[in-house]
């Protein structure tokens, strides 16, 4: 995750990933905001893995999982001052100072203990489903920059895929981010173009893209075939950002 990512030489992969995750959480919070209140439409867990494996929220949320979005909104690790271009209500735009929440900072470390991380996710799912039998099945977005360093994740990954709530299976999407400018493969419907066993393993652990997710992909200009899986291989910064957009936007509860 310390590699340079994309075409901007100063951009470390870890910085980019932390930014995408913070923005994704930010957007989820905004979707749940009703004037000055937050509706708890979502509960969030973020698991990081590298040198350590476990909950990745910083600040007051350290160590916590399955957190109601209202609490997530109210407790970012800090608020950063940023500049954003907003309408001046007269046909132009002006730079406006905004407060942007940061929940987690970039971490880069060589190891990729994917099996251990999947095990934590599976246990979280089991607990969640036990407590919310009639709830909406959880969505799991997995982002990795390399192969598992603690064994084959297939079995524990299949255990995640097999979980369901209210008779619907969980949605498990996988995104592999690469710095090598290799050919990226987005949302394939079969594994014939995938280059190696690792990519095929992640493909097999990825849920088919439900219709609502396919619609969002289409809106982002991504064409998907029938049977497309929620899987990206050799993703660049654009595909990583889109992966989070596709994985979270369909749950827009109007």
């Amino acid at each position, binding site marked *: 995750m310390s590699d340079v990512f994309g075409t901007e030489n100063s951009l470390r992969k870890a910085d980019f990933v932390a930014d995408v995750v913070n923005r994704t959480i*930010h957007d989820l919070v*905004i979707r749940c905001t009703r004037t000055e209140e937050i509706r708890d439409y979502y509960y969030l867990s973020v698991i990081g893995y590298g040198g350590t494996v476990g909950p990745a929220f910083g600040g007051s949320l350290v160590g916590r999982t399955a957190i109601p979005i209202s609490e997530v*909104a109210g407790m970012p690790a800090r608020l950063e001052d940023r500049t954003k271009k907003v*309408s001046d209500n007269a046909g132009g735009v002006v730079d406006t100072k905004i407060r942007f929440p940061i929940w987690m900072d970039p971490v880069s470390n060589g190891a990729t203990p994917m099996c251990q991380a999947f095990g934590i996710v599976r246990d979280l799912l089991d607990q969640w489903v036990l407590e919310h039998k009639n709830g909406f099945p959880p969505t799991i977005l997995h982002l990795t920059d390399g192969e598992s360093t603690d064994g084959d994740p297939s079995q524990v990954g299949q255990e995640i895929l097999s979980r369901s709530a209210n008779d619907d299976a969980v949605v498990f999407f996988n995104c592999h981010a690469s710095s090598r400018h290799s050919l990226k493969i987005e949302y394939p419907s079969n594994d014939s173009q995938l280059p190696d066993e690792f990519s095929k393993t992640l493909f097999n652990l990825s849920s088919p893209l439900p219709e609502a997710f396919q619609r969002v992909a289409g809106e982002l200009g991504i064409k998907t075939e029938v049977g497309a899986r929620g899987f990206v291989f050799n993703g660049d910064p654009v595909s990583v950002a889109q992966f989070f957009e596709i994985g979270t936007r369909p749950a827009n509860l109007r």
Partner: protein
Amino acid sequence: MTESRVIPDLSVSCYLAPKQGSEARECEDSYSFNKTRRRFCIADGATEGFASRYWARLLVKHWTQYKKPFETLEERAAWAKSLGDRFDERWRDRQLSWFAEEKARSGAYAAFVALWFVEQGSHLRWRAIAIGDACLVVWRQKAILTSFPLDDPQNFGFRPILLPSKSSVQNTTLEGIEERTGEALPGDVLFLLTDAIAAWFLRAAKHAPEQILEFEEMLNRGIRNDLDEFIERARSNGSLRNDDVGVLRTQVAP
């Protein structure tokens, strides 16, 4: 010699209900009427917006109090801008959380349909304008005479164009205002309906018109519990989408 003119009287009944699972204070539909000026309107604040309930209320309240003809784009733009400014003013000096502040930057949106009557000899003529998917349905002799701007229940739910509170983006919407006019005969009933109940109404008119008669009878009697039970039944049997319900019924005296 003076001509004797007896302009028919108008009777009004109305109903608002929040979506199932929400409280009355969360209902983002709003209506207003002024019988003296013969002005009636209903608005549906978009849940995704900021303070949409307030925006919907502002629109209906001020439209029914408005005294000018409301004919030209310039006049309509000035009216909408003054309300947009008033909306922004309400939040300007408030200390908001980061998420409310962010949401407030995008403002509120609402669907809106307004109805007024003008005298034409001893008759009344109705005029209406509409933005988005709130509808006017003219009901004559137990059948739909006009439904406007949508007349097919299949056409609801496709991201309608809504009236924004941000004045910088109001004009495009205002240019697309739809207008309609028609003769108001004695006994005609004109319903202003927000989207979910409008779609229900159009379906029921085709497949179960007795349901509309039952609903109308309840509106006439104005017994809140009966109406609530009717709506609950329609939601339970799947004929009515779970959304806020807003109805303003105006009848020209028979």
